[in-house]
């Protein structure tokens, strides 16, 4: 049996190879899904933890316990630790994540201490486990130092030594902590310490957090506990979990246990359930989008498999009928095809899964549409789900191959002989106008979604998952219009045939009849062509639009290539009335100007950037406005603004302001709101950097409006924040730009951002390094390149680029192979027919003409229509789908981006396909011997 099936498969090796290719790709795409999804989820989870750590300035995967115990229950640190460890054990039993570090802190209830130098301060006496390993003594000795006089050695952080003006050697006496003989506790400061690595995750509570503490050794802490009258020990136990071990598979469980622990234990603390909740929300979107983006290509693959399988069956229907007439049952025939497809599917799984793995790695390295880079793809690894998905794909493939067998296996040889006569019945969809109905449905959906666009954007901003129909509707449209076009082409051919029916040459006559009489078969490849080309175009335009618009917005939001902010120490003094004053001294700007001389930057500019400024117009005050202080010339050279956003080139506005010292440029939304015009005055205020109960205004200079702009480098008119209900709200923001010198005059020296226009080919990190090597302490640095890379790596963009690229590549492969297969088999099937044509005296030239004509009216026309459908789908759907990716309102509206290179690539592939196909067909026909071909008719 096996031998028979093998022989049968080899008999039609080319068609079966195509079938195999189809199943391999299907398996690959299916097995790609879980790997890609889980990889994307893990990557997203990991980046959410990274972001949380950056935002919170604290390790953000911590669980622990804080509480207090009575000293009478726990005599020493070890017994307390035993209790704490019992909790840790319980957590670790449920959570499958290792702790990387542990910060255990125990403190005796604090009290005021008086030092021998007259300082009176409040201190806790603290023991921290393993503290010695994570700190350096910067001055003096460690807490094991021996001191006389019955005092205990303790150490203190550098920061609080400075803050409290303490000195090493100072003795602190705690009057309220006494031993049995009522003698108060005394500690001598023996050393000053600092963390030995500021990024050490041990310091969950940082030294800054551990204000008002002195630290003693474990032995001394125990001794003090034993001898003195402290009643309570406070403790914090923090476990720093390895969030790299947190994955899509255990995130839900982890969240569940965190809640359980919290409910069961009021002292339990953790700081990352928000991260997981946020992740779970986004994960829904990722899962949906991966499916939605893969679905069209899966449908295309199934259609391909069905097409090839039908082609094989058609060629074998005589064989099937013969088997039937010799008494083989339908079941047995089905068995043969089931066996064949099972063999193919097993081979396909063996090849498809590794290919799926590679495709996934490729997709994960995508930078943009059809652009792949070297990227860390370690999140994407083999997943057990791949086996399940590929098995499912194989089963579906087998179904698609064997189901049409029913149709053939039912027929006897007599019915086969008369089948061709019935091949002219209209296909189902054509008879019931399914194409027109589907086009109408898709347009209706589009109309509805377009109406709801603002609310869709807001719901996506609030974290809801996008409606998959928004995506699928475009595929539906392409498919439905593909069918409609097929109908129209058929009408057109009939019409053309009709108008010249008396005069057509034999070749044209035969080709027209060929097309109209085999429309069912031709229709399939035509729709396939329309869909592939239209989808290829739509996907490329979609991906380009998302990438370009995202990049453009990032460019706009930053306004230049690199922005850094240096730490300026603040000077403080008190005047006679005990009022605190502050001042800044400008750091040397030369160090930045030198970057231009060194060829690292094209230009640099000082920019006072304050997004908490207030604009005052008449009696009204608008808070949280953006105020920029700029040197017009430097700013013009350094900042960049896309053209076309303002009425005039933005340099005009800079020039307008340059000549008026108190001149300001304001945003048009402000001008509209308060009916302001050039020449009017407004005031703008900034606030003191020292935070008090209420912000204190530094000054509120008045400015003359020199220009009103719609867009400005670094100014985004819209901000989003969550309101008390957790709903995202859009808020309008206003801009005022002033001359730098005038702003300094009004507000005093102000720490500014340095904007840099980076020279071509220079890595921004070299600039940062250059600055840091000069000893500049940067408190903030933002790089456009870095932002763009981050955007490209963000899961949503990555999966979209990756899958659109994959889909495109697969569609092109399918289209080429499908097209060739269709034509080759169709020629092979028609060999006898060509023999008759040749015998009747048709020349090769005429046969070629006939084939060209046939291709013109079926394939070429369908391809051209494919471009039309792709363009229509782009115009109709891209802006809607882009809302899922770019839901925020922005000064730069979403604009459709078409990369002609993609279209050219696609066209080259299509043209190559036609040329190769034609050459192959010609070769087959040339080799064909008339007498040989005619013999085919004799069996």
């Amino acid at each position, binding site marked *: 049996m096996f031998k028979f099936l093998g022989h049968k498969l080899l008999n039609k090796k080319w068609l079966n190879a195509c079938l195999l290719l189809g199943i391999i790709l299907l398996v690959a795409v299916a097995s790609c899904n879980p790997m890609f999804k889980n990889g994307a989820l893990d990557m997203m989870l990991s980046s959410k933890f990274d972001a949380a750590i950056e935002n919170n300035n604290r390790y953000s995967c911590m669980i622990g316990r804080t509480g207090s115990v009575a000293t009478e229950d726990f005599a020493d640190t070890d017994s307390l630790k035993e209790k704490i460890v019992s909790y840790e054990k319980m957590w670790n039993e449920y959570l499958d994540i290792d702790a990387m570090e542990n910060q255990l802190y125990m403190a005796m209830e604090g009290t005021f201490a008086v030092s021998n130098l007259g300082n009176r301060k409040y201190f806790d006496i603290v023991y921290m486990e393993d503290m010695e390993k994570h700190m350096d003594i910067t001055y003096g000795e460690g807490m094991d130092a021996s001191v006389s006089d019955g005092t205990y050695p303790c150490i203190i952080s550098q920061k609080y030594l400075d803050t409290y003006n303490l000195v090493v050697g100072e003795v602190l006496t705690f009057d309220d902590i006494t031993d049995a003989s009522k003698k108060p506790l005394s500690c001598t400061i023996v050393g000053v310490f600092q963390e030995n690595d500021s990024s050490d995750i041990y310091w969950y509570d940082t030294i800054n957090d551990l204000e008002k503490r002195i630290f003693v050794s474990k032995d001394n802490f125990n001794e003090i506990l034993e001898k003195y009258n402290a009643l309570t020990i406070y403790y914090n136990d923090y476990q720093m979990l390895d969030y790299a071990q947190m994955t899509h598979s255990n995130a839900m469980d982890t969240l569940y246990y965190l809640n359980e622990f919290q409910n069961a234990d009021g002292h339990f603390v953790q700081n990352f359930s928000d991260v997981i909740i946020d992740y779970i929300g986004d994960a829904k979107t990722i899962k949906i989008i991966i499916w939605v983006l893969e679905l069209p290509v899966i449908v295309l693959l199934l259609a391909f498999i069905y097409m090839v399988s039908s082609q094989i069956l058609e060629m074998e229907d005589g064989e099937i009928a013969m088997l039937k007439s010799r008494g083989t049952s339908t079941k047995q025939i089905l068995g043969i095809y089931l066996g064949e497809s099972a063999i193919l599917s097993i081979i396909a799984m063996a090849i498809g899964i590794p290919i799926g793995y590679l495709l996934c790695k490729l997709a994960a390295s995508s930078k943009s549409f059809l652009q792949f880079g070297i990227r860390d793809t370690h999140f994407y690894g083999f997943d057990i789900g791949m086996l399940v998905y590929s098995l499912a794909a194989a089963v579906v493939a087998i179904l698609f191959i064997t189901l049409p067998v029913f149709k053939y296996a039912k027929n006897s040889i007599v019915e086969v*002989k008369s089948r*061709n*006569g019935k091949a002219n019945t209209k296909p189902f969809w054509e008879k019931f106008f399914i194409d027109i109905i589907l086009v109408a449905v898709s347009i209706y959906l589009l109309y509805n979604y377009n109406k709801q666009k603002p609310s869709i954007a807001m719901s996506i901003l609030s974290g809801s998952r996008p409606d998959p129909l928004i995506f699928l509707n475009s595929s539906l449209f392409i498919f439905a219009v593909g069918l409609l076009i097929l109908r129209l082409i058929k009408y057109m051919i009939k019409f053309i045939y009709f108008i010249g029916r008396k005069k057509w*040459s034999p070749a044209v006559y035969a080709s027209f*009849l060929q097309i109209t009489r085999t429309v069912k078969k031709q229709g399939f490849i035509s729709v396939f062509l329309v869909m592939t080309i239209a989808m290829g175009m739509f996907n490329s335009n979609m991906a380009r639009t998302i990438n370009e618009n995202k990049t453009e917005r990032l460019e706009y939001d930053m306004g230049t290539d690199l922005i850094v902010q240096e730490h300026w120490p603040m000077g403080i003094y008190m005047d006679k009335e005990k009022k605190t004053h502050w001042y800044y001294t400008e750091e040397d700007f030369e160090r930045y100007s030198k970057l231009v001389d060194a060829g690292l930057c094209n230009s640099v500019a000082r920019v006072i950037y304050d997004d908490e400024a207030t604009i005052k117009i008449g009696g009204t005050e608008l808070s949280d406005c953006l105020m920029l202080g700029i040197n017009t010339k430097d700013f013009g050279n350094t900042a960049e603004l896309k053209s076309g956003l303002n009425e005039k080139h933005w340099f005009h506005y800079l020039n307008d302001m340059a000549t008026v010292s108190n001149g300001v440029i304001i945003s048009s939304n402000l001008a509209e709101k308060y009916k302001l015009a050039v020449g009017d005055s407004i005031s703008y205020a900034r606030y003191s950097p020292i935070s008090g109960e209420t912000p204190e205004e530094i000054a509120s200079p008045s400015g003359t409006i020199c220009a009103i702009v719609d867009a400005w480098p670094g100014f985004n008119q819209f901000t989003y924040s969550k309101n008390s209900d957790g709903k995202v709200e859009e808020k309008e923001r206003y801009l005022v730009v002033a001359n730098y010198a005038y702003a300094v005059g009004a507000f005093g020296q102000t720490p500014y951002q340095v904007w840099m226009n980076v020279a071509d080919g220079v890595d921004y990190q070299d600039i940062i390094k250059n600055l840091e090597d000069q000893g500049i302490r940067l408190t903030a640095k933002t790089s456009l390149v870095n932002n763009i890379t981050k955007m490209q790596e963000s899961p949503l963009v990555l999966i979209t680029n990756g899958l659109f690229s994959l889909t495109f590549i697969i569609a092109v492969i399918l289209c080429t192979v499908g097209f060739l297969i269709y034509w080759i088999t169709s020629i092979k099937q028609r060999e006898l*027919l060509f023999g008759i044509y040749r015998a009747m*005296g*048709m020349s090769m030239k005429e046969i070629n003409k006939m084939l060209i004509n046939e291709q013109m009216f079926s394939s070429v026309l369908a391809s051209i229509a494919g471009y039309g459908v792709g363009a229509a789908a782009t115009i109709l759907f891209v802006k809607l789908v882009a809302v899922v990716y770019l839901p925020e309102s922005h000064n730069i509206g979403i604009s459709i981006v078409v990369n002609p290179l993609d279209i050219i690539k696609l066209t080259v592939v299509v043209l190559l396909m036609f040329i190769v196909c034609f050459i192959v067909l010609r070769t087959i026909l040339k080799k064909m011997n008339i007498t040989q071909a005619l013999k085919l008719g004799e069996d």
Partner: protein
Amino acid sequence: MDMNMIQARDIKRCFMLGSGEPFYALKGINIDVPASKLTILKGRSGSGKTTLLNILSALDEPSEGDIMIEDRAYSAMSESQREELRRYEIGFIFQSVALIPIMNAYENVDFGLRLAKYEGNRDQRIKEVLSMVGLAARMYHMPNQMSGGEQQRVAIARAVAHKPKVIFADEPTGALDTASGLNVMKLFKDLVNKEGITIVMTTHDPNLMELGDVVYEIEDGEIIG
């Protein structure tokens, strides 16, 4: 007097076997096909009669020897001239699936006329020849909606429609039952007698032999009678 339409002289046709040895399907055949007569090539299958018919009809070329049609030698003709010969002066009837499956009876005949650049009223001629073969009523039927005999009659109509000088028929009755076969033969006789067409056909059916004006018997690539 009898004029010869086709004269074949010393025709040999050699095929290379898989073993590399030459095999002579025709071993030096001399044959005269008289004009306006029904010539029958008789022989068992494998005798070489179809090979001979293909060569006589300019579908295949002999390895040696030459054929003259009305004093024109095939060897002196180019490929395209031979195509024109087949197109304008010859009609073909093949053993089984002789019709173009995507065209109905009417269109099959029309196609032949278009190929032969028929000068007159095509529509009228099509109806005429289809009536002649008794299929006027089934004009718009597709080949697969017709019986084998009907199909063969359409093929005959197509072969004669453009008024060729010679019709070649390879086992025209091979796939038909006796009655249909005789029907076809009767049509051939009528064409020869009434329209003066020359017909060359092959058959292995001894019963049809007596209907031929000239009969050649072929065995192992040689004329034996």
